[in-house]
């Protein structure tokens, strides 16, 4: 039996459900895995620090030409997915937020209009994503490369798309650059994303001007930062290794010229080969892992079934006594968990209050900084309304980023403490310690099954994971610049008109105290509105975050309670059955065990 048909098989699902008491949703998990196996798609996200050359890398790797617009700075603001298609010539389809699609020509010039920051600022063209398809050997085995914009450069509406891609991704190419250290927001993003990939290719882009010493130092620095991140997110540190150093710009040039020697010299060839190797084997690997999982399920079910037979054939009174004892242990555990849960929620609440308080300080700082920025600009003679406005927007975005950064780092800290002090202490309840242990033991190995390992029997670790996910989701969602847009709009126009007529080379010398003061007052009003609104928004976000994690804890506790009750009722009913019925049950279970063993052998 192959793995796909195992996970697809209704009878097997039913069989497993009957015995895997400690797993709350066997059918759901089976369906999910079978879906993933059938998807025959492997998403590789390309992401990294701003301006690390993501688009250039894909240009060299797939197109051997400049197709994706790439400047030295961060330019891509829309996710671009490249996957297999029948035609040799790439076709590009633009997907808009409203569901419209449009086929456009797949060239730098035309793509720029949709995915380049300068041509589509703040995604005013309302693009969701761009998909490119063409016949390329690297894509043949269902590989999709996704050029993911950095967190900061993506608009809120696109964030969900980026997150969805991350969630579905199997592997990633993470790009770094020497001159630009990993920032805080980057590190947050990496921590969120790390556990989702079974395979990460680290790539450090090298500039032509960089000496070998510098490159090595840079590599060490980056590796240290990454290891630190791994340590903190409980990701196996050893996976942070083999940072490949490639000169992407040389590589791109060489691929365009088809100069194999230069491709090799740039370090690109070796990296390319790694990817090809991965592309060939990812399917086998995935299947292999799922097969392991399947065998493990069957094995555990057999153990559970054997335990059932033992109970059914034992002395009723003794078994009943044992069941009651086990039940009371389970309930005590549950009670202890509830206690931890309660403490965790109290802690969460108190911390959230503190963060809300801290936000007041943050917003107050932003308020002062912005007012000072306006004073500075106006005093220094910046009198063109249009440019004053531009400068003001820059400063506003910066302050917004600071506030966001504050909330983000606080959430992160809070998540860590919750996990360490509360969640790690909570035990998964079960009426059968053995079963629990075996399920956990085998599944806690974060195998190449991103996304759902956390759901399978890893106990409260899952709560942490889910909670973190929820927190990240809600923290990223409002994103940078949300509050700015709607508060600022109207007032700025007024300032522009006020100062607009003063533009001109001689204008600065004209006495215009009055207009300056008016413009200042107008901007101060905007600042005041903005900071009020930002405070309100972010404080709401804190509340949402707090509620979301509380709900996850409650839900998990309820689920635990349900499992204990159900198992108890089921086993009690079994024991209370008349002897004849028990006998036939034993026969049926024996038949099931045989069936399970048969399946196991076939696997």
């Amino acid at each position, binding site marked *: 039996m192959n793995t796909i048909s195992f996970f697809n098989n209704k009878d097997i699902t039913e069989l497993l459900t009957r015995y895997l008491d400690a797993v709350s949703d066997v059918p759901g998990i089976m369906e999910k895995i079978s879906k993933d196996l059938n998807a025959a798609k492997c998403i590789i996200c390309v992401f990294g620090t701003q*301006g690390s050359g993501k688009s250039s890398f894909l240009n060299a790797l797939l197109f051997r030409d400049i197709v994706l617009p790439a*400047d*030295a*700075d961060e330019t891509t603001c829309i996710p671009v997915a490249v996957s297999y298609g029948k035609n040799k010539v790439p076709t590009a389809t633009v997907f808009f937020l409203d569901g419209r699609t449009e086929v456009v020509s797949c060239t730098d010039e035309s793509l720029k209009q949709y995915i380049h920051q*300068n041509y589509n600022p703040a995604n005013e063209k309302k693009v969701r994503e761009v998909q490119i398809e063409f016949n390329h050997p690297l894509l043949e085995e269902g590989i999709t490369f996704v050029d993911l914009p950095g967190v900061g450069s993506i608009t809120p509406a696109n964030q969900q798309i980026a997150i969805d891609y991350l969630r579905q991704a199997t592997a990633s190419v993470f790009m770094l*650059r*020497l*001159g*630009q*250290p990993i*920032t*805080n927001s980057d590190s947050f993003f990496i921590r969120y994303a790390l556990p989702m990939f079974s395979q990460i290719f680290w790539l450090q882009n090298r*500039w032509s*001007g*960089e000496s070998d*010493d*510098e490159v090595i*130092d*840079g590599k*060490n*620095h980056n590796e*240290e*930062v990454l290891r*630190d991140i791994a340590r903190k997110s409980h990701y196996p540190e050893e996976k942070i290794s083999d940072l490949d150093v490639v000169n992407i710009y040389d590589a791109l040039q060489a691929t365009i010229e088809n100069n194999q020697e230069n491709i090799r010299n740039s370090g690109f060839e070796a990296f390319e080969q790694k990817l090809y190797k991965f592309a060939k084997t990812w399917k086998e690997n995935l299947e292999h892992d799922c097969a392991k999982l399947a065998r493990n399920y069957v094995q555990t079910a057999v153990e559970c079934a054997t335990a059932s037979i033992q109970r059914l054939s034992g002395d009723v009174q003794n078994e009943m006594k044992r069941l009651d004892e086990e039940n009371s242990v389970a309930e005590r555990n549950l009670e202890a968990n509830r206690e931890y849960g309660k403490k965790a929620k109290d802690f969460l609440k108190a911390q959230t209050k503190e963060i809300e308080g801290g936000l007041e*300080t943050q917003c*107050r*700082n932003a*308020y*002062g*900084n912005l*007012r*000072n920025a306006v*004073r*500075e*600009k106006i*005093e*220094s*003679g*910046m*009198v*063109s309304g249009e*440019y004053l406005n*531009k*400068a003001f927007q*820059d*400063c506003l975005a*910066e302050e917004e980023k600071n506030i966001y950064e504050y909330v983000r780092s606080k959430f992160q800290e809070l998540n860590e403490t919750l996990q360490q002090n509360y969640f790690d202490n909570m035990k998964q309840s079960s009426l059968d310690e053995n079963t629990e242990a075996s399920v956990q033991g085998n599944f806690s190995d974060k195998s190449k099954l991103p996304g759902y390992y956390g759901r399978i029997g890893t106990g409260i670790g899952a709560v942490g994971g889910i909670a973190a996910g929820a927190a990240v989701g809600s923290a990223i969602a409002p994103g940078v610049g949300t509050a700015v847009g709607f508060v600022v709009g109207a007032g700025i126009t007024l300032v522009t008109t006020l100062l607009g007529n003063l*533009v*001109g*080379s001689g204008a*600065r010398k004209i006495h215009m105290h009055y207009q300056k003061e008016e413009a200042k007052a107008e901007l101060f009003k905007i600042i005041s509105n903005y900071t009020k609104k930002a405070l309100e928004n972010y404080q709401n976000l804190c509340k949402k975050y707090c509620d979301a994690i509380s709900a996850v804890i409650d839900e998990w506790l309820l689920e635990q309670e349900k499992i204990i009750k159900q198992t108890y009722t089921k086993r009690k009913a079994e024991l209370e059955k008349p002897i004849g019925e028990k006998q036939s049950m034993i026969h049926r279970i024996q038949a099931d065990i045989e069936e399970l063993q048969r399946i196991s052998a076939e696997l």
Partner: protein
Amino acid sequence: MQNISDLIQVLEDSWDLLAKSEDSRMVPMMKFLHERLENPQSFVTLVGETSSGKSTLINSFLKQKLLPAMARPTTGTVTCVEYGLADRERLYAINRDATTEELDIRGFRALASHPDENLFRLKAEIPGNRTEFRGLTMFDTPGFNSIISDHEEILKDFLPNSDVIVFAVLYQTGFTMLNQEYMSLIAAMDREDPLPVLLVINRVPAGVGKMDRRIREIKSHAEDTIHRELNCILVHAATITPDGHAELPDTEQLWKEVAKKAFSKEREREIRKKSGIAVRRLIEQRINEMEKLRHAILAGQKEHAEWQKKRRTQLENTLKLSYELIEKRIRRIDNMLPSQLDSAEEKIIGIVKSELAGQSDWKDGPTAQNFIYMHVIPFNARLAIRNIEEFIKTELHELDRELSEQANMVVQALNEDIQLTTDPELKKLITCVVTRFATRLAGETASGMIQPLAGVGGSAAAIGNLVKMAVKQIGSLFGKTFSRDVYTTIGKIFTKKAVQTMSFALSVAIEAIDYIWDAKTWKDKLIKETEKIMAQWKYELEKELFEDQIVSDDPNDEAKNKLSILTQIKNANISSVNECYSGLLADFDPDSTGGRLVSAANRLENKDAVLKEIGEDTDQLNKKLAIISGMEGITE
């Protein structure tokens, strides 16, 4: 609630016992604490631009024209005026070589307006009988628009330790950009307790009150900068006598407000608490020393000697390794920073280019230039600086981890020794050694506790007597962590320097504008100018970061030599490592004069007598500890 006098009593009663310590810093520390407790001083630092009237504020408190008002901003000399402690007026100069010279009023004023090279500080002790101001110590600082480098000391040492900071702003000039810059540096130093800033608007015309539009703008501008509300006091301009001389203004309200803050109940409690803890630490340290000696005498000599030898070698290796780690890390930062600066430079030029290329509708050259000089360059430079700062921080964080790891390994090894040793006395001896080392690691030594009491800028140190000189030494010690604390101070200096360098490069560019706004060529010219600005910025910043300027014969003379930021970081790390291990090294030093460990213990002839003395001293000091523990408000 006990009085400070109880604490003084404990200190005096323990004096002879503590003075027996092998630690040469013990006596100076005791003397310092004693004086601080006897004469509770309060430190008031006055800052402001040149001519903002700081000196006049002090003069009018003293009701005499002691300080030359409007002294020309030629120097960075700080003048210290101490009120109510001395019994006669004493004026003197403290020189850079730590000598003092008593001056008459003419000499004093002459030096104040024309200081010579050797002058470090001026100090005036003014007697007075207004008890509510007794111990008020005022520091008149140079205006912050004068020479840059001298302000670092004020920022680093004076402000964080001041009980009140008087920030003087002239009504006529308003809250200038310079004021803003300086105030924001103060804001950056706010920790949990915000620095006690008092905003004084000076020379306010008669009849103008708090509702005046200009007053309100100064106040709100200052508050926007420091991000909190400020207590604001108006000092009205002095009346002019018929013969054209200015009288001293009425500053009674200001000084009352200063005294209220400087001598508040909370502050007194805080001092009492800190001093109490410091006294306790001194006693604990001495008890620990005696314990060590006791066990060293009693321990089996052979095991003891073997243990000592083994650990000394290990310790020396650890120290060597720690230095290497620092060296390696600094070299790495040194290696990587240039490319970070390069990429910042390149990036900003790129942004300017794309700004100019992207906007086809630039109204004209001057507007564009204004936008680029006033916003695009400084704004993006600040972002780049933050990135670089983040990088240095990460590196130092790693270094900190590595150094702590080394120190922890030492603790671990010693703990293992305790487990493995069979000799019970040696066991106890090692326990004492570990305890002392761990206390150092945690930054909880007596000297660490005294540091915050040292007052303004180890101000004390400035004043030139022996006791206080010792405090400067103590003040430079490091507490809690290795590298991180280093960064918090030096990192700020870097940021400040980087921003300043940028404003400097820009101001040069602005003054040099001489091209005609030709419609065809201005964009190219502007880009060329930008490139020049960025190159200048990078050049200056690299100098600050990497170039040591050794002018003194003594390369370690930090006051005279201008050391690069990297060297400063390195030195601070080395001294923090040294401080951490110094006690341990002495413990393992066979020639240690105090007789801490075996060889020294063996040299003792009258062991029994020593043991008896130690026993009695320990009992007595333990009783003192119990007294302190019984005092209210000294719990940690």
